[in-house]
Each structure stands twice: as C-alpha cells, then as structure tokens.
C-alpha cells in the first residue's frame, strides 16, 4: 500500500516563543525545530501499516528549505522517500494555500492512504489535513487514535466531543492523528545513515504547475502578534493545618475572587 504522510516542521513545544521586530513573526534564535508532534504519530502509524501491508511511505511537506531536516528525520525513522515543496511564495501563504500546494504534490504520487496531524502545534489551525482531503475529494476521518486497514477498507476509532466513535470507509482516505495512536519510534543510528541516501525531491511551485499568485495572496493573514497578559505569582495561602489552609483558600475564592 502506498501511504503519504503530510508533515510540517515546527518549533518544539519546549521552545520559548518571542515576537520579532516586525511584529508578525517569531524570533528564530534559540528555537529547536522538530517534526510537528501530531505528524510524528502519522509517520509512525504509516510505518506500522507498511510493516503489515507492504508498500511505501512518502513524506510530503511544504515550507522552507530548512524543513528538509524534518523530512530526513522521518526518513531516518524508516520512511522511503520525501518531497519538499519549497518556494519563496509559500512564506506568506495561509493554511488553504498550503493545502492547495500539498494537494497538487500528492496528486503526482501514488497513494491509497494519506495521514496528517490533526493540527500543527505552531499555528494550531486544524485546517490543512481537512483542506487537503477536500481539495482531493477524498473522505476525511479526523482525530484518529486507533485504526485498522483490511480488505480495502479502514476502520478508525476517533475522538468526538464527549466521547469517541468508530467509523469505516473504503480507501483511499485521509485521516488525521490524535494522541494515543502510537508511541513514535526514535531514529536509530543505522536509520540515520540510511536516510542520507534516500531520495528527497525538492520542488518549486512552477514544478507543480501552481501559479505563485494563487497562494501568495492569502485571505487569512497574521497582521500582528502580541504576548498574552503575563501571569504573575499571587498570594500564598498560609495555615497551621490542611484544614486551616483549605478554609482560608475557600474564603478568598468565595469572597475575593468570587469564583465559588
């Protein structure tokens, strides 16, 4: 089975995020760039499906040249090849622009299954996976924490508001990952060595036949970043015993904060 994983390189969640002088981007200093954690689940799940059903795992990403590092990491985990769409026009594009580009790139590749993260932990948009499915006219199953592929069909357990459901669809399908799906493997040293020789194609928008104007003028544009109001240390509740402290806390919550 030919599987495609959509992948984004993002700042690690431990990274401190500071706003750059232009007011709309973040300072690149000191940021550790990693595979988006939800995309890491996608890579791992693709490898597990390949172990059972054979076939190939192709990583597809759109962004800056630097994103090649994240693709290499996925190749070191065991994916077969990578495609990076890197183009200056992508700098300003929004989620729909990214989805347009990814959908074009995916169309050129054989695929029966596409796996994407439910969201990227940088822009938290929850958009690209769903939008790629929509643009390809492919069924979407979001927030999957367990799946099984059998006889040309996929059965997925997915998170919904207030619980979970089990759904089924005939392949091809695009599904997005939810925490709990798997525990992603680390790239082994031999894996890292092998990854260096695996194919990684870099493409421009022109290569895909996408007009830069189509994605370079986004309808959704970040016009300013600000830091949320800083929380500071408040009042420590003192007391001789747990009961005394509890009484003092409940009193302030009731009388001062008025939240009880």
């Amino acid at each position, binding site marked *: 089975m030919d599987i495609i994983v959509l992948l984004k390189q993002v*700042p690690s*969640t431990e990274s401190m995020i500071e706003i750059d002088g232009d007011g709309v981007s973040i300072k690149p200093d000191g940021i550790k760039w990693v595979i988006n954690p939800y995309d890491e689940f996608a890579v791992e799940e693709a490898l597990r499906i390949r172990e059972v059903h054979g076939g190939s795992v192709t990583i597809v990403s759109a962004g800056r040249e630097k994103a090649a590092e994240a693709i290499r990491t996925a190749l070191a985990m065991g994916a077969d090849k990578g495609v990076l769409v890197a183009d200056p026009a992508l700098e300003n594009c929004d989620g729909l622009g990214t989805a347009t580009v990814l959908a074009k790139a995916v169309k050129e590749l054989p695929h029966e299954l596409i796996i994407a993260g439910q969201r990227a932990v940088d822009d*938290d948009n929850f*958009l690209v996976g769903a939008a790629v499915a929509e643009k390809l006219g492919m069924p979407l199953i979001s927030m999957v924490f367990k799946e099984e592929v059998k006889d040309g069909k996929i059965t997925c357990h997915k998170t919904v*508001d*207030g619980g979970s459901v089990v*759904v089924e669809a005939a392949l091809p399908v695009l599904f997005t990952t939810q925490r709990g799906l798997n525990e992603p493997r680390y790239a082994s040293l031999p894996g890292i060595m092998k990854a260096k020789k695996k194919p990684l194609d870099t493409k421009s928008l022109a290569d895909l036949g996408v007009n830069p104007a189509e994605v370079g003028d986004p309808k959704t*544009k970040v*016009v300013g970043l600000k830091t949320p109001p800083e929380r500071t240390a408040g009042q420590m509740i003192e007391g001789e015993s747990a009961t005394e402290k509890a009484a003092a*806390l409940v009193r302030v919550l009731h009388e001062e904060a008025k939240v009880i």
Partner: protein
Amino acid sequence: MPNMILAIAEQTDGQFRKVTYEALSEGKKIASANGFELVAVVLGSNVAESAEALAQYGADRIIVADSPGLADFSSAAYVEVLCGLVEKEAPELVLFGASVQGKELSACLAARCDAALATDCIAIAWENGAAKATRPMYGGKVLADVQLEGSARMVSLRPNAMAIVRSEGAGAIEKIEVSEVDPPVKLIEKNMETGKIDLTEADAVVSGGRGMGGADYAVIEQLAEVLGGAVGASRAAVDEGWRPHADQVGQTGKVVSPNLYVACGISGAIQHLAGMSSAKVIVAINKDPEAPIFMKSDYGVVGDLFELVPAITEEINKIKS
C-alpha cells in the same frame, strides 16, 4: 436583503452546546452594531422544535436542515448543506464553536468555499467591513491578530471565551430541503460519556499531575463534582496511563479557559501553562514550594494534595449548605 451573519449551531439530541449560545451572542453584537441580520443554522434530525429556542439569543431567522441523514455529524453531509447555504445567503461572516466538530466542519467548509478561516478565536473586531480576529498560537504562548478577507469569512470561537447574552430575536423558522447524500464515512459505533461536562466548556477544571502518584483520582473527582466542573490532567499523568488522552490539558492537549483552574500536584511545565493560563483564576496545590506553577497562579497552597484537596471539598460543601 441586508448583510448577514450565519451562526452554525451545534446540538446533540436537541441540546445545544454552550459555545453555540456564545457564538450567537457574539454574532448578535456584531450584527446589531452593523445593521446585519443574524441567522442561526441548525442541522440534525427532529431538531425543528428545539431550534426555536435560539431566538432567545438574538437569531432573526433560524434555518433548519432536518433530515435523518444529518442525525449524526458527518462533515461530508454537513458541508454539502452549508456550502449551498453560503452560496445562497452570501453571508459576511460565518461563526462556529471551536469544538472538535466545529473545527472539522469549519476547515472543510472553508476549503470547499475557498473562504478565509480563523480557528479557535477569542475576539472578533468588525470595523467598516474589515474583519480582524484574535487567536492564540503556539499553544497560547502568543496571541495573533488575523485579518480575514473575501466573502463568507469564517471564524470559530474558543469555548468559554465569549459571554452569553440573551436578547430577543424574531427567530422565524425556515426549513430547507436536504438532498440525501450517501456519506463515504460510515458510523459503526458510538461510545459517549454521558453526563460528563466537557473540559473546554467547564466553568471549573480540577487537574491532577505527577503528584497524584497513581490512577486514583477520587479526591480530584470529588472536588470537580462539588464545583460542578471537569477533571483534567497533565501530560505526565496521561503518559503514565492514569487518565485518558482526552483529559490532557496543555499545548499538545486541550486548551481550557474556565473561571477557576485548580492544579494539583502539577509542577507547571511551559506546555501545561500554555494550556491553562487563560483561566480567570488559577489555584496551585503542590508540596514543593519551589514549583514553577506558583509563579503563574493567583493563589498557591503548599502541602500534601491528598490532605488539602478533600479539606477544600469539605469547606466548599459547608458554604453551599
């Protein structure tokens, strides 16, 4: 025909989610200031009767798509209906609640209609036709102002971010024809936790972390119950298998904005803080006086959570009786 705002309601068995009322209230505010019409849209099966209640939140019209095929959420079926409505009604703005369902639906609809979308927003500014939404990014470490362009600009609203304001709308019910679609994704089984308050919509959240030392969350559950709130957990507790993934609060879990957040035995990793720092009041309970969580909390108590939390539950019970 006046310009209009569509607010997509979300319901289960005729019960609307809190965030639906929040979206209607916010929609009404913008509609009133700009002379727009506010139109609620309800999709489901046998929902016409419950839909009438939305007039109390300012809906001038209530469009109802009632069909057995819409009983359970299916993005394919729902997008089909909504895309038709967007084309027909040509709204200025389409509002959703940023629930799991709302986020999927808004993403699919924005892609289908090629419309601007801002997800999980905490504020909307509408000035002379220019729309700007404010939304957290990087798990809440940064707030972004996002400009939306084009027609049918779409915004999903973070639960608990907007006030619910009652106002009387005409609320004329308008049923629309729905053509049956055969959704490609079939529902096989539902496993719902009935009676549980949704973490993102709860007024109070009590979370337990590594300091719980095990899967016994009884003290946390009891405090959550007396507060009428929900139980959350840190990533450490979820990774240990003490709590389900759905309970995780933090940058890679859920972001919550309750009135009261009580962090028990949670040290306060940056990813966890990102998930809860928009709570109105934060209380930290930890035996380590140096725990970083105290630096971000309105009230801190140093001590053993297994003694403190039950004592707090008892004190609240005293106030209530």
